[in-house]
């Protein structure tokens, strides 16, 4: 059990997909304008990661090595379609806000990266926790980035105004602001990492 928990925690902190592996930056830059978008994207990606990791881990003995990438893509695309249709049915506003980036989870490097690097070699239960950890890590990173961007760029947080009289810096609502925030957070986490040792 302890080992499984470690497997989960690894994705959240030590191998955080956004801040340590630097994967999946395209959706991170695009959807981290508001916290709601960040949470929605994170949950969708977590669902896809969980599903694809389990299925690929189950099928690992049946998938021929030479055509493994197309096989992974088929599995991932199935789960992305499920996520997209569910989102369309139950929260069309979120689906409209995320736009093309929901179907683009198919080619998200985190999902394919975990399938290639982990799920095709590991046991089903380990893959499950790995996918869950990676998904939670991605979601937390998205929430952190989008909270900073939403507050600085629009002066609001989840639709509320925390500080009155604060003049939002519009640049943080633009993609260039996302690059700035991600760069500074990366630097900050590197400082923390180096200090521990």
């Amino acid at each position, binding site marked *: 059990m302890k080992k499984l928990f470690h497997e989960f925690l690894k994705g959240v902190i030590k191998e955080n997909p956004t801040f340590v592996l630097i994967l999946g930056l395209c959706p991170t830059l695009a959807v981290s304008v508001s916290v709601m978008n960040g949470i929605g994207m994170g949950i969708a990606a977590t669902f896809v990661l969980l599903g694809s990791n389990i299925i690929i881990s189950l099928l690992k003995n049946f998938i021929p090595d030479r055509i493994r990438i197309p096989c992974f893509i088929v599995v991932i695309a199935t789960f992305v379609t499920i996520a997209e249709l569910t989102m369309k049915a139950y929260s069309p506003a979120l689906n409209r806000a995320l736009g093309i980036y929901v179907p683009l989870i198919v080619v998200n490097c985190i999902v394919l990266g975990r399938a290639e690097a982990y799920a095709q070699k590991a046991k089903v239960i380990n893959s499950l926790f790995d996918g869950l950890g990676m998904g939670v890590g991605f979601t937390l990173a998205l929430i952190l980035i989008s909270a900073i961007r939403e507050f600085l760029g629009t002066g609001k947080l989840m639709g509320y105004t925390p500080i009155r009289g604060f003049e939002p810096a*519009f640049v*943080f609502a*633009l993609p260039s602001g996302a690059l*700035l925030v991600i760069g500074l957070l990366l*630097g900050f986490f590197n400082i923390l990492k180096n200090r521990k040792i």
Partner: protein
Amino acid sequence: MKDKFIVSASPHLHKDESVSKIMWMVVISLIPAGLAGVFIFGLNAFWLIVLGIVSALFTEAVLQILTKRKITALDGSVFITGLLLAYNLPAHVPFWLPIVGSVFSVAIGKQVFGGLGQNIFNPALVGRVFLMASWPKYMTAFTKPFDAVTSATPLALLKEGKLIENISYLDLFLGKRGGCIGEVCILALLIGAAFLFIRGYISWHIPITYVFTAGLLTYMFGAKGLLQGDWLFHILSGGLILGAFFMATDYVTSPLTRKGQIIFGIGCGIITAVIRLWGGYPEGASYAILMMNAATPIIDRYTKSRVYGIK
């Protein structure tokens, strides 16, 4: 006479120059433009300049203490950054704007790259563009000279297609127009630039090619017909002179060789003219210089001077 016979390694004759001294000379050369700006727009401009400089010095010192490096806040270079950033602001912006701009200039524009000599982009322009993208309503609210009434810059009026007739070349030359604090008085800027030329701190290569290219292109394509543009108006308005003589010539972010500097100046001129004539903004000098800053490493690579004796 005795000190001439000291045995030492070369070089034996030093010129009495240092980075710090040159930087302070540039500061001196910028003083006339600042005085003119304060005279034209009132005391508010003076406080903006002071705030810009103080917060730039403070940010540099704090970051160098935090990263445990030698504190070089008083070597003049960061003083110029704060000064130029304030010169690039309209005269009646809120007082927190130069502070935020200076902190961003020094922290993101300069110190994240490793400090003086390492930055890719001109820090003051990084700050200006950041402010421009963040708070456009303040950065484009220019005030009329000798008056606290907001007015558009001549370039903005030109962009909207209603060029005012009552502004003469002399008004533009002396700075009687809407604009940023340090960019309006061309006469004062040219006095400072002449000082730098005579002392040999800047060469003609970047500023002259920059102004000439921008003038030529606006002359060719500035009006409906070919070769009918008002090139003198374009040279005298906007931040072209300030940018060409004081920001494009920044040692750190411009090419090293003479050939490279000419390419740099021509590139700046082309981009400025293109943005002014066909772009969405009325003024493009700051974006032009930043874009050519990004191209500087590649210009340096292809204009390397040949080592003697090697093919």
